[in-house]
């Protein structure tokens, strides 16, 4: 109470307007309601109030005033509320959520009365209303929400309705939900911010809203002119977020894109994972067309693409190494992630720079309404997350961290393993702030750290560090922009100090500074236009080997840094030609500049790039453009609906990739080297044509699809025999550019509802490479096509969950695939005192087929909504059958005899247990 006086005092000073004498009141309100307030003011003054009592039900006034002006009193009372007042002579209008302008709009004076309802005036009014942060929140189904300037009759023509879809409980945006208008058969999906824009005829409409994990909802509107409507949806509350019931039933058939899969965290959590911690990348591997070369890698291959051809984004930040502990855990914290979207065929024109796929991982926004948190305790890792509002429901944060404590465990192992140590952690911290209805900013940060030493004296460490700042600005209901700036870094180091004379520490890092501006424009119901530009500045330090300790005689060896600028502009349109035919057409033009300072080696034309054929080395100064690559990229897709639950789609894509990952090991390993395209190493280029048939059955509870694709690659890098990749000052002499082709067919069945849900997929796919240019260096397999390392023709995946009750459910995950190709020894010979082997043509043979089955039992605590904590247990077994899947096979000579071995990882059934708690 005392605090109010100085405030009121300030108001007195700042108001200089002269008012009538009888507008002073003296009163002492204690928890007075609106009626008591109004009655008292009306009694002491000549003012008369106009208001709607139900709107003011929640208002309680405690105030002591003495000879205070009415307008000051009302200002004080309504401060920091959504209530407004307007004084027009002796009349006072009280409103909620909207200010009444008592003066005539400026343009009004110049016009005659008939232009009162002209669009310009209304637009001015609408904009004024929209600038207010309190856009109406539509929460109930039975109410008719008036949108725009209410007129006696609806005018003809269309108007634009826009707004956000949010979770009523946490205030989080709902992404990818569909808003459908049955009368006009038009609909849109919300974007990554939960934003939608709908261009529909004015009049009465019912909006049908379906969102993943949300209760289906309807909202009734009366659309008078352009306006905003934020819609809040109820979660499927009984399931405590752990079990998913999809509402996104027709999206599969309706969406234009091919080869796009979206999964929310609830479906991810159902899939049994090693050590019981939900693992995003392992779930991605169950999708058709996605494969991995082996158990201990989370690098994945999409439709015959290499592991480095996937763009992995976490809130628009590029993650170079998405795994911990060389692949046993994915680097994404399941408590923070909201959903993932994998694009394997129709890659939207706003993405670029990778050939195969985009994995877009989105974190949740912090809860805007209350503080919540969760924690998980597993055998090897623990994690914690906290989120909540910072001020007045406009700012929220979310924080998540994970760490491992496997070290103490390693020390209890037999002595062979005692020299091992493992540690890793990752931290997410995101902020979102709503400046006003037109402006939002988002800050996301990510940090991951790994350190390990396995039975050797060599220690490995690697880190991802990412930060991004996003500003979303709504110009109007039809146009908004997102400006993003960020910095991504990945670094690793390898060190050894066993031999003091050559103790070393090897460092590598890749850095990128990003800027991009993305615009979305809704010119009419039938078009959604995306355009924008982006620029990435790369700075890559490909290796620096430094002596470790004083005794080390090692010559410091630093491979010079590489710099490049990758820029792109794009324009795309989603055009609903008819209600059945939709075309997505996009064009992206990318421009790549390799920049100085750098010394570039030039080799004699027409001869292999070998040190012998070096003709010149040219030094370029800082900032000098050494080499430019550029070209258009086409993104086309179309969907034709034969019936509401049956559609066919086709697409064609071209992509360019300027950054290469060099690895002659089979999996992504922490010591792989990235390389920018330069005068000697061309960018990779790929194109893909695909076709799909989509049919939903049993009232959209079962989705089926068949997709086929054919892909061409050029200038994909493979390696010369015995290539050295680390600390190589002329990497071009150790790599060869290959041509590739990949084709396949993917069958997918998904059941979304009922006690049993899950998905089953079968993929037949092939990937071949060839190097047939004798001038480029050695021919591989005589210049014929040979299978790529990740060519696995047959793959079957089943992931299912059966709910006995809301509290008990079981999940089963089964994977089968053909073994990946290997190069086998074909004959033996005796050399240098031992028997040795001669290897076959590259990738001529295959390792045994892969099969694994995982099982888990999920037990939720009770489902009372109001309790301090919600907890759940997960018990399970990874690799239930204990099959010893070969990770690799190899041949070693021991005591002069050649023995063949296969290496298996997770070769036994691994029981796990995990405890999760939410508060």
């Amino acid at each position, binding site marked *: 109470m005392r605090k109010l006086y100085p405030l009121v005092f300030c108001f007195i000073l700042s108001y200089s307007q002269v008012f009538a004498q009888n507008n002073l009141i003296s009163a002492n309100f204690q928890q007075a309601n609106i009626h008591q307030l109004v009655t008292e003011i009306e009694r002491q003054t000549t003012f008369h109030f106009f208001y709607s009592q139900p709107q003011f039900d929640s208002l309680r006034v405690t105030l002591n005033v003495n000879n205070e002006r009415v307008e000051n009193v009302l200002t004080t009372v309504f401060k920091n509320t959504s209530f407004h007042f307007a004084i027009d002579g002796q009349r006072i209008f009280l409103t909620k959520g909207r200010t009444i302008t008592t003066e005539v709009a400026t343009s009004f004076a110049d016009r005659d009365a008939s232009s009162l309802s002209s669009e310009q005036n209304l637009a001015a009014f609408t904009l004024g209303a929209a600038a207010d942060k309190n856009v109406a929140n539509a929460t109930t189904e039975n109410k008719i929400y008036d949108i725009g300037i209410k007129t006696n009759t609806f005018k003809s023509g269309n108007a634009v309705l826009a707004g956000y879809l949010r979770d009523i409980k946490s205030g989080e945006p709902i992404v990818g939900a569909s808003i459908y208008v049955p009368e006009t058969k038009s609909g849109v999906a919300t974007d990554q911010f939960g934003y939608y824009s709908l261009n529909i005829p004015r009049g009465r409409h019912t909006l049908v809203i379906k969102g993943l994990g949300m209760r289906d909802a309807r909202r009734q509107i009366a659309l008078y002119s352009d306006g905003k409507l934020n819609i809040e949806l109820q979660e499927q509350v009984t399931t405590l977020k752990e079990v998913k019931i999809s509402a996104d039933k027709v999206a599969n058939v309706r969406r234009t894109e091919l080869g796009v899969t979206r999964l929310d965290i609830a479906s991810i959590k159902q899939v049994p994972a090693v050590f019981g911690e939900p693992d995003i990348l392992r779930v991605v591997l169950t999708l058709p067309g996605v494969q991995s070369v082996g158990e*201990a890698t989370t690098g994945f291959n999409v439709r015959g693409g290499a592991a480095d051809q996937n763009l992995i984004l976490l809130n628009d930040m590029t993650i170079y190494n998405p795994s911990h502990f*060389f692949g046993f855990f994915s680097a994404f914290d399941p408590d923070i992630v909201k959903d993932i979207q994998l694009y394997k065929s129709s890659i939207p024109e706003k993405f670029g720079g990778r050939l195969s796929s985009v994995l877009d991982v989105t974190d949740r926004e912090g809860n805007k309404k209350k503080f919540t948190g969760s924690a998980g305790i597993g*055998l090897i890792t623990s994690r914690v997350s906290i989120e909540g509002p910072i001020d007045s429901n406009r700012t929220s944060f979310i924080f998540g961290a994970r760490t491992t404590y496997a070290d103490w*465990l390693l020390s*209890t*192992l037999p002595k062979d393993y005692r020299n091992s140590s493992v540690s890793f952690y990752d931290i997410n911290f995101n902020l979102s702030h709503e400046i006003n209805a037109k402006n939002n900013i988002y800050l996301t940060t990510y940090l991951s750290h790994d350190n390990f030493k396995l039975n050797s004296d060599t220690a490995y460490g690697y880190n991802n560090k990412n930060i991004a700042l996003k500003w979303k600005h709504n110009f109007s209901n039809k146009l908004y922009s997102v400006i993003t700036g960020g910095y991504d870094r990945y670094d690793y180091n390898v060190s050894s100090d066993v*031999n003091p*004379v*050559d103790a070393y520490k090897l460092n590598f890092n890749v850095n990128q500074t990003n800027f991009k501006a993305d615009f979305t424009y809704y010119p009419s119901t039938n078009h959604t236009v995306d355009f924008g530009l982006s620029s990435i500045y790369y700075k890559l330090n490909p290796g620096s*080997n430094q002596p470790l300790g004083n005794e080390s*005689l*090692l*010559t410091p060896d630093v491979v010079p840094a590489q710099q490049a600028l990758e820029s792109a502009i794009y324009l795309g349109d989603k055009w609903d030609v008819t209600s059945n035919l939709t075309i997505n057409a996009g064009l992206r033009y990318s421009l790549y500049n390799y920049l100085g300072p750098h010394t570039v080696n030039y080799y004699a034309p027409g001869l292999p790039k070998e040190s012998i054929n070096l003709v010149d080395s040219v030094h370029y100064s800082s900032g000098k453009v050494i080499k430019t690559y550029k070209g258009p990229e086409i993104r086309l897709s179309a969907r034709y609906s034969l019936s509401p639950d049956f559609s066919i789609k086709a697409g064609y894509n071209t992509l360019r990739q300027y950054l290469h990952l060099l690895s*002659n*090991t*089979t*999996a992504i390993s922490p*010591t792989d080297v990235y390389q920018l395209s330069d005068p000697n190493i061309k960018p990779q280029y790929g194109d893909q044509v695909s076709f799909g048939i989509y049919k939903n059955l049993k009232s959209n509870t079962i989705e089926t699809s068949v997709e086929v694709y054919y892909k061409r690659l050029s200038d994909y890098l493979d390696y010369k*025999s*015995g*290539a050295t990749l680390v600390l190589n000052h002329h990497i071009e002499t150790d790599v060869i550019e290959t041509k590739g082709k990949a084709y396949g067919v993917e069958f997918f069945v998904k059941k979304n509802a009922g006690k049993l849900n899950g998905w089953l997929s079968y993929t037949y796919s092939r990937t071949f490479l060839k190097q047939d240019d004798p001038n480029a260096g*050695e021919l591989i397999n*005589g210049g014929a096509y040979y299978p790529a390392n990740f060519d696995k023709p047959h793959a079957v995946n089943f992931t299912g969950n059966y709910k006995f009750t809301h509290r008990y459910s079981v999940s089963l995950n089964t994977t089968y695939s053909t073994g990946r190709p*290997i190069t*086998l*020894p*074909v*004959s*033996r*010979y*005796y*050399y*240098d*005192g*031992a*028997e*040795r*082997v*001669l*290897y*076959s043509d*590259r990738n001529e*043979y295959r390792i045994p087929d892969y099969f694994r089955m995982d099982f888990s039992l999920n037990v939720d605590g009770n489902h009372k909504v109001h309790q301090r904590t919600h907890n759940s247990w997960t018990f399970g077994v990874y690799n239930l059958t204990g099959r010893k899947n070969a*990770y690799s*096979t*190899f*041949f*070693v*000579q021991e005591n002069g005899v*050649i023995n*063949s*071995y*296969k*290496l*298996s*990882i997770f*070769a*036994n059934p691994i*029981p*796990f247990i995990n405890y999760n708690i939410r508060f």
Partner: protein
Amino acid sequence: MKGMFKYLLLLSMLSVVACRESYTPPSTSSNVSNLVVEGLINSSADSTIITLSRTVKLTDSTILKPELHAILSVESDGGSTFNLTELPKGRYYSVGHILPLTNKYRLRIKTADSKTYLSDYVEVKQSPAIDSLSWKAQPAALQVYASTHDPKNSTTYYRYDYVDTWQFQTAYQSLYKVVNGAIVLRDIVNDDVFTCWQSSVSSRVTLASSAKLKQDVIYEAPVITVPFDSEKLSLDYSILVKQYALTKEAFAFWTNMQKNTEQLGSIFDAQPTQLQGNIHNINDATEIVVGYLSVGTVTQQRIFIKKSQLPRSYLVKDLYSCHADTLLYNRSMVNEVERYILSGIELPLYPVNSGGAAIGFMGAPPDCADCTLRGVNKKPTFWQ
């Protein structure tokens, strides 16, 4: 409950640690038999020996399939040549020719099936002297190292191999032997089967490089690791280490061979790659010829490690589970001496007496009493 928890943790961790097991690859049908060329053209007064063989199928029981009746000659880019003469088992020999360092040399091979192979011209690489051999007795193994340096900084790439020799004794000493069905005293001076010497050659590719260092120095390059319980360390031990100088290309070849046959197996290891030697069929460039021909000199050094210098904890593992048996002439009407000793199943150690009369013999299996089964009982000339 706590114990159970820890057990679960342990179980999980153990299964994470990768498991490796024996594996039979799909049988390969390739009948191609490739020529294998091994050896060094010695540029000093030492002789040159080149070994020719053929690759065999993985399932073949043959270890070495020698290539016989080939005609080999060494050619200088200065025009001179000399021929090699054939020895048994695919070995080809020439007496020492001191080769001028200014020239390069190549090997010409004409096989019995009239195919001609030529190596690239190779420069002469002279190996500097080995500065020292050193060793460390670590708890689990004895490690021998070589150190060298080249004051001219011109060698850079090194390869090592060795011949090691060790003295050993059997578990029991046999003082008697069976001659024409009779047990007689053994001549333990000239016919001792208790103490022997055995030798082995290196079977691993051992390489060292000073390319990354500021000086051409090799400091303690590991040459051999001998487990503490090996019979090699039961008594005195000696090792002769040979050092070869390599060209950069030869080093790449040997590194590749080392990677392909010795270093595979961990998670980050490179994929096997096809070997690229420097010998080619002059009519068919695609034919794979295994081997890399080098030209140069060899330096060597020997050290002895006495049993008394090794830790007391270095105890030999008894590989043969040796035991001695008391064998009687008459044990319940069975003549054990005849059944076990005269038949050769066991060797006689010494007589068993009872009241002054020999009632039998102590016997032991041959592996436990006859060292000549795995060594020679003649002391090597270099032995100290």
